[in-house]
């Protein structure tokens, strides 16, 4: 899923300083699952903002609404009535949702209530880890199902660099956090699968054009003839 973290309330208060009436828009997709931008978080943020502004003697009216997804036009249409009543929107969806909701209502300013972090998995309660870089050219067949682009700090394609030691990535030292070496994981998995010969294969330089936007994906079989 797409993993996001909430922005500090102080940052959001700064963004909302000029406004008297705003909508906080939540999303029931990924951000609900990672407990950042669902109905509950919309309510909490709304309370925090109301209290902070009241305390400053500058009260603000806040509407709350959460829909199925903000990356889908049909759900974003449901915000119409509330958007018409406010000076600005704060979206707690991922960066996609924020922008797509903003596109739907171009005359109302929209602000991000979250930082979108990664495409990750929920490893443990309260812990998410990146697994995919959306590079557009999957190499998992060559690497034992573990992605070197997302999980090696240097996105190397031909094995671990000289900084891999005791299973850890060299970046663990400067960032003071244990980061597993992606290539050690790949090596161990391939070893368990009896496919270590894949470590000897030279993977050529990547076509990063597929990894860098703006990207579009069109499926002719699904597109409608609008002529």
């Amino acid at each position: 899923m797409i993993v996001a973290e909430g922005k500090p309330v102080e940052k959001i208060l700064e963004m909302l300083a000029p406004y008297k009436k705003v909508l906080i828009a939540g999303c029931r997709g990924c951000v609900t699952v990672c407990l950042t931008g669902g109905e509950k978080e919309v309510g909490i943020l709304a309370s925090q903002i109301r209290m902070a502004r009241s305390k400053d003697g500058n009260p603000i009216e806040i509407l709350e609404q959460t829909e199925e997804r903000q990356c889908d036009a049909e759900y974003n249409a449901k915000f119409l009535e509330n958007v018409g009543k406010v000076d600005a929107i704060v979206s707690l969806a991922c960066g996609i949702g924020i922008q797509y909701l903003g596109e739907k209502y171009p005359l109302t300013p929209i602000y991000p209530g979250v930082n979108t972090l990664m495409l990750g998995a929920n490893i443990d309660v309260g812990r998410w880890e990146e697994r995919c870089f959306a590079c557009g050219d999957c190499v998992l067949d060559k690497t034992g199902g573990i992605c070197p682009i997302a999980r090696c700090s240097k996105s190397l394609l031909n094995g671990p660099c000289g900084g891999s030691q005791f299973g850890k990535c060299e970046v663990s030292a400067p960032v003071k956090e244990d980061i597993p070496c992606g290539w050690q994981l790949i090596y161990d998995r391939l070893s368990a699968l009896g496919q270590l010969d894949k470590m000897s294969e030279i993977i050529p330089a990547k076509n990063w054009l597929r990894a860098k936007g703006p990207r579009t994906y069109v499926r002719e079989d699904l597109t409608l003839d609008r002529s």
Partner: protein
Amino acid sequence: MTEANSKPEGNLKSGSALERTYVSGQFVCTGEVGPPKESSFHHVEMYGNGMKGRVDAINLTDNQTAVTRLSSWAAAVKLVMMGLEPNLQMVCRDRNRLAMQSDLLGAYAHGVRNVLCLSGDHQAFGNHPGCKGVYDVDSIQLIGMVKKLRDEGCFECGEECKNNPKFFIGCVENPFGDPFEFRAVRLEKKIEAGADFVQTQCILDMERFERFMEMVRERGLHKRIYISPGLMPVKSPKMARYMQHGVPGMLVSEEFCQYLETAPNGKIGALDLTVDYVKRCQQMEGVAGVHIMAVAWEEVVPLVVQKAGLLPRPFAAFHDNPAPISDEIKALWKKSGVDNYIPELA
């Protein structure tokens, strides 16, 4: 002196002094200079002159430890102008394939003939930790790119390159990295990609290096690539202990640390230990030379080389004899207390 666009003679790939020395079968000796964090060639000139005629080539590190420094290619060109032979280090962290190939063309046109291809320390280590790391290609792909330019006369994209650069291609390997069993396989991948010589991470644990060499010999790699272990005179026992625990990708043996700790004079001990390691490497099957990387202590390279009996160098510095040692270098020796290490040089 190497002409800017001369063709390599005979079967030589690049015609560099480094290549000639390896090919001749004589024990190779290379040095290293870290360009400074300032817009001046002073250090490069000073250390370069100290090594003149004493090493076969001098590595110029490329923003080592991810700290911004004078560019490796500019320092390499400076050495060419001084009549010395550079080994241009190029890391994958700071440039994409466009910039790398462009720098290779420029460096070659200036007379640079050796290039050492590395991944590079991650930017998080350096003085701009928030910068964007490039890693457009990895070190193995970079080796392949330099080889393609040399042997096929085309760029990575396949387009023809006229007056293509013909580099002697180096790579690195770290016998102390994990997975250990993969390290020889990785070296083999680099050979397959086109590497002609390898300089290793500095060897501060001889036993582990010997085990690495066993794996290398089992695969017959020593017959396909010239191998120079990196040797580092470590300035103080404290630094050795720090590297033992605090530097990712390094292993420092107890023997190494204790030798420095118990030596009557730590600095002299460090030089003696390096000289001893040179001799041990000379005895090891499959080792073609040594790379003396005196990080932040470059002035001692001439001392180690002479004490280890590696002089004269056969093709070094285009047949120059060892240059006289400058007063500046002598002053640095005095500062470290190693000025009498080789009395006739003092």
